[in-house]
C-alpha cells in the first residue's frame, strides 16, 4: 500500500508536468488548427532564462520568474509573427513543419549561446520535501500539482466567464463567423500564442529543479505531453489535464509492476491504442489525424 501511494504521488506529479505542456498544445490547436511542436522548447527556453537571471546574474527568484515569463510572452509574439502568421493561409502541414523547424532552431540557438552543460535550478522551497507517513512528498511536485489545479480553475473561469475568453472560444470554433461578429481573429491568435508560450515556460521552470536544465528537457516532456493530448482529446482543455495525469500514472505504475526499461513504451502503446480505437481521445472531437 505504501508503495502504491508513493507511486501515485509521483505519477500525478510527473503527469501534471505533461498536463501543463499539453495545455499549451491544446490552446494553440484550438485557435489555429495546427500542432505546435515547439511547445516543449518553450519550456526549455524559460528554464534557461531562469538560470541566466536567478543563477548567473543573481537576481531574486521572484523577479527572475517574472522576467522569464515576460520573455516567454515575447517569444509567443515572435513565434506567432515569424512562424504562424506568414503561413496562416496555407494548409496545416506547412505550419506544422515550420513549428518543427522552429523547435530545432530554438534548441540549437540555446546550445550555441549557453553551451551544452546541464544546469541546476533550485526551486522555491528551501526544503526538498516532506515525509507524510510512509510517503515522501517532493515539494516541487507538490507545487506542480497545485499550479496545475489552479490553472484548471483559472482556465475554466477565463474561457467561460470573461469576454476575452469567450472571444477566444468563438475564434477557435469558427474564425470567419468570429470575424463577422467583429472579433479580431489575428489578435485572438496572438493572445493564444502568448498564453501557451507562458504556460510552456511555466512548466519548464517548475520541472527544472527535478529534471535539471538541459537542451533536451523540452523535447522529452513534449513527446509525452503530445501523447497526453491525443489521449485526452486534441482541442479539449479538460482532456489535456486528464490525459497528462493518466499518462503519468500509467507509466509510473507500468514501470513499477511490469517493466522499468519499457516505461516510455507504455505511454506510446496507450497513444497507439487511442489512435486506433478512439482517435478523438477521451473528450475531444475526431481531429487526431491532423497531428
Amino acid at each position, binding site marked *: 500500500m505504501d508503495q502504491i501511494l508513493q*507511486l501515485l504521488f509521483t505519477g500525478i506529479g510527473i503527469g501534471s508536468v505533461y498536463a501543463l505542456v499539453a495545455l499549451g498544445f491544446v490552446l494553440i490547436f484550438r485557435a489555429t488548427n495546427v500542432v505546435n511542436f515547439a511547445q516543449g522548447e518553450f519550456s526549455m527556453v524559460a528554464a534557461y532564462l531562469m538560470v541566466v537571471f536567478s543563477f548567473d546574474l543573481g537576481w531574486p527568484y521572484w523577479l527572475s520568474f517574472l522576467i522569464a515569463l515576460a520573455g516567454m510572452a515575447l517569444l509567443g509574439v515572435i513565434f506567432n509573427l515569424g512562424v504562424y502568421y506568414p503561413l496562416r493561409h496555407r494548409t496545416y502541414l506547412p505550419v506544422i513543419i515550420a513549428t518543427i523547424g522552429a523547435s530545432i532552431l530554438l534548441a540549437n540557438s540555446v546550445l550555441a549561446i549557453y553551451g551544452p552543460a*546541464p544546469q541546476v535550478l533550485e526551486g522555491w522551497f528551501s526544503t526538498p520535501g516532506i515525509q507524510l507517513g510512509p510517503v515522501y512528498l517532493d515539494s516541487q511536485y507538490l507545487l506542480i500539482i497545485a499550479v496545475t489545479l489552479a490553472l484548471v480553475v483559472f482556465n475554466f473561469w477565463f474561457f467561460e466567464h470573461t469576454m476575452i475568453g469567450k472571444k477566444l472560444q468563438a475564434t477557435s470554433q469558427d474564425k470567419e463567423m468570429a470575424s463577422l461578429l467583429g472579433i479580431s481573429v489575428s489578435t485572438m491568435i496572438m493572445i493564444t500564442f502568448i498564453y501557451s508560450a507562458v504556460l510552456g515556460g511555466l512548466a519548464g521552470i517548475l520541472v527544472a529543479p527535478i529534471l*535539471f536544465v538541459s537542451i533536451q528537457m523540452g523535447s522529452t516532456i513534449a513527446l509525452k505531453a503530445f501523447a497526453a493530448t491525443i489521449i485526452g482529446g486534441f482541442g479539449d482543455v479538460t482532456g489535456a489535464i486528464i490525459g497528462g495525469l493518466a499518462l503519468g500514472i500509467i507509466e509510473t505504475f507500468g514501470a513499477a509492476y511490469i517493466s522499468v526499461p519499457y*516505461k516510455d513504451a507504455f505511454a506510446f502503446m496507450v497513444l497507439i491504442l487511442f489512435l486506433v480505437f478512439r482517435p478523438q481521445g477521451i473528450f475531444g472531437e475526431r481531429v487526431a489525424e491532423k497531428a
Partner: protein
Amino acid sequence: MKLTRRDFSIGLAAGLAAPALIRSASAQGATIKIGMVLPVTGSAAEQGKFALNGAKLALEAVNKAGGVLGKQLELVTEDDQTTNPGVVLAFSKLAAQPDIVAFLGSIRSTQVHAMAPDVLKLGKPMAIGGTDPNLTHMGNKWLFRFRPNDSYSGSVIAEYGVNTLGKKKWAILHSTDAFGTAGGKALTEGLAKLGIKPVLDQGYANQSQDFTPVVLAIKQSGADVLGSYFTFENDLGIFARQLRQLGVNIPWVGSPSIVGVSSTRLAGATLYGTYGVADYAEDSSEASKAYGKAYRDAYKLAPDNQSAWTYDAINVLAKAMNTAKSTEPEKIRAAILAIKKYQGAEGEYNFDENGDGLHGYNIVKNEKGNIVFEKHIEATK
C-alpha cells in the same frame, strides 16, 4: 611569336587551374590529419566539448614538440549529433578524405558499434573511448581503446564492494544501451567470481524523467550495496536525488559517470560518500597530475576522463606514427600494439592483441564534492 587559338585555350586553362593545383599540392603534404567524430549537438554535447578540449591540448603539445614525421598534426572534426545515424554520417564524411590517416571515435559504445563496420571496411586505425568489452573482441583490428573496458570495471567494482566495503547483497542498476547492458553483465560476472548473485538486476531507459519505481525496487530488494552503470549524467543526477529522498542510503559504487564533473555538480550532496571507478583520477600518477595541471591551466576546468582519453589517444597516435616512421595504417597499427609502459593521463598503457591499452581501474570517493583517489586495482581478467 604567333599566339594560336589552341595555345590561348591551353594557357587559359592552365592559368585557371594553377591556383587550385598549387593549393591542393601544398595542402596534401602540409599537415598530417587526424579525423575526430564527436557530439557537438545532442544529449552528449557536453561530453563532446570535453573530448575536444583534451584532443586539442595534446595536439598543441605534439606540435610544439616538433609534430609527427616533421609535419604539424591537424584535427578534422565532424559532429555525430549523439545519434547512431549521425555518427555513421560523420564518419563517412571523414572517411571520404583520403589524407586523414587515423581517427578518434566516440566515448559512447553504442555509437562505436554503429560505425565499427565502416571502420573495418576503411582499414585505418581508430582510437575509441567506449567501454563495452565487445568492441575490441569482435574481430575489428582497427579499433584501439584508450579507456579500460567494462570487464575490468565490473570486476573492480565487485572486488571493492565485496572485499573492502564487505557488502554481499548487491543491487545492480544499468542503462539498457550497449554500454549499460555490457557494464551490468560485467558487474554480474565480477560478482559471480566472488560467489555472489545480485538480489536485483535492473535496467532503465536513457533520458528517464522519474526513477521512483527503480528506487522502490532497490528498497524492496533488501540490497546493502548498489552498483551502477549510468550512461548520462543527467539521469544519474535525477536518480541520485530520488534515491536519497526516498530514504535509500546504502553504499553506492558506480561506473565512471558517477564521478564526472557534471554528475558531481548536478547531484550535489546526494552523491557525497559514493564511490566510483575512474579511469582518470588526478592523484593516481605523476602523468595524471601533470595532465590535470595542464588542463586546468588551459581551460579553468576540472579534468576528467572525457578529455583525458582523447589527450592520450592523440599522443599515442603521434608516438606510433613517429616510431613507425610512416602513416601507413598497418605500420601505425603495429606500432600501437608495440606500445608498452606508456605513462598517459589515464594510466599506464600496455596494448594487448585486442587493442585494449589499459587493464585496471582507480577507485575514487566523492568527499563533499571533491573526488579523492582511494586506490588503483589492476584487474585480473
